């Protein structure tokens, strides 16, 4: 057995892999890595450009060829840009009033609904699931106006309620995602629990949810990210400046670029704030990565 596992693609020792390569193999490896580097660069360069532009003087931002290593690097731009407006408040608004409640709502509601669509069999399930998916098939621009009128009648305009409350009633995208995942969890586990007298709620909370942690992390991460980056939602429903999330404040900064023209330090400030705004998402990804890697072991069941 050990002989076979040593020859698995995910071999423990990478040295052995490299030493066994033929000259042609080396060429192929180099081509492979060159391709990967080019692709990675296409994603990373905008980030790098954002980060370094924050350190530059305004005229340096758009020079050709681009200055890849700004000197002198104005690290104080990060602090100055952040304090140039009340970004502390906007940050708290985004996290406390919007992103966190919405994430909690999405994870809880989508898990429950997805379980209902994935495992128990009941009449009309597939029709309802199709209806649930159908909610995604109408473009957002179509429902925008009717939704706004509805929320205005409810008196919710000017608060975060129009953005938070719907999150607690499920989101077709995540319901579909979780349903796909739940269906791969062995039915034997929930059958065994049912024989022990567990109700559907117990099966969901004690068996399905612990096993589906990576999928739930994906849902939490994506929902947090979309709330964090959401510009259009708050633009429509949140109108007091004291309530603004980061996205509106940054866009407001950008909007004033056109008004004031080339006021010194505008672009670096904009880039500095954008870079700080991107940080929490990057951090969230790094922490979530751990859950993904731990993964789950469905191999406990032998079919």
């Amino acid at each position, binding site marked *: 057995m050990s002989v076979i596992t040593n020859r*698995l693609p995910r071999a423990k020792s990478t040295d052995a892999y490299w030493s066994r390569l033929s000259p042609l193999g080396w060429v192929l490896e180099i081509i492979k890595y060159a391709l990967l580097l080019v692709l990675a660069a296409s994603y990373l360069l905008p980030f790098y450009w954002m980060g370094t532009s924050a350190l530059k003087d305004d005229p340096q931002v758009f020079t050709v060829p681009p200055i890849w290593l700004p000197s002198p690097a104005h690290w104080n731009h990060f602090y100055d840009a952040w304090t140039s407006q009340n970004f502390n408040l906007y940050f708290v608004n985004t996290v406390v009033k919007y992103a966190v409640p919405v994430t909690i709502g999405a994870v809880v509601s989508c898990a429950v609904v997805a379980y209902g669509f994935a495992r128990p069999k009941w009449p009309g399930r597939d029709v309802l699931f199709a209806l649930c*998916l159908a909610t995604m098939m109408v473009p957002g621009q*179509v429902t925008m106006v009717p939704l706004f009128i509805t929320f205005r009648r409810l008196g919710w305009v000017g608060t975060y309620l129009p953005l938070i409350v719907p999150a607690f009633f499920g989101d077709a995208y995540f319901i579909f995602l979780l349903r796909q995942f739940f269906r791969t969890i062995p039915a034997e586990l929930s059958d065994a629990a049912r024989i022990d007298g567990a109700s559907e709620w117990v099966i969901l909370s004690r068996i399905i949810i612990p096993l589906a942690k990576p999928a739930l992390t994906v849902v939490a991460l994506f929902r947090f*990210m979309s709330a964090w980056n959401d*510009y259009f939602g708050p633009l429509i429903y949140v109108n007091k400046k004291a309530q603004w999330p980061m996205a509106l404040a940054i866009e407001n900064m950008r909007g004033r670029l056109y008004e004031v023209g080339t006021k010194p330090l505008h672009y670096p400030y904009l880039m500095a704030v954008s870079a700080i705004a991107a940080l929490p998402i990057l951090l969230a990804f790094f922490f979530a990565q751990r859950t993904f890697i731990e993964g789950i072991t469905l191999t406990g069941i032998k079919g």
Partner: protein
Amino acid sequence: MNTPLTGQPAPPNEQFIGLLRTALRRLYDNNALRTSPLVAIFGLMDEPDPSAALRQLLIAAIRALQPQAGTPADTLQDVPRSLYDAAMIDGANGFRRFWHVTIPMCSPVVLFNLVMGFIGGFQYFTMPWLLTQGGPNRATEFYSLHLYRNAFLFLRMGKAAALAWLLFVVVVVFTITLFKTSGRWVYYGGEAD
């Protein structure tokens, strides 16, 4: 701050795309960069050539799929090692292990991405609206742009509603077809056949 529904409607915006566009626009004004391979990679430029503009928006769309592409990678790690072991004993090479073990085990996520790709693709809006607004010469006039234009610029709400219904029906038909075929190629490990 522009407010919606008064005068010129505020285009649905995504701040970072907006930023990127502003920046790239100004970069693009320099002739030196116009031929740069980086510009081709970003694929975000206003091009005078209609077919090039369309091509670049499609590249941008494919690049934007990145978060979805992450989802199959997560489940990749959960494919039981025992299946790969079994395939190796049967003499399967790397490609066959991928084709006959990895892909079938990931098929629920493939179905998910396929359906989502269809739904999202039919509604492709933000990128073309921000970058080309349907031009040049309507080369990048995507369906949802046409819909939005009718509804909020020409204020032909009836036509826009009809367009939306048509889009809905087409997407429903596509999705139902996908689900009908899915029984043949999607494998849910958790369920007895």
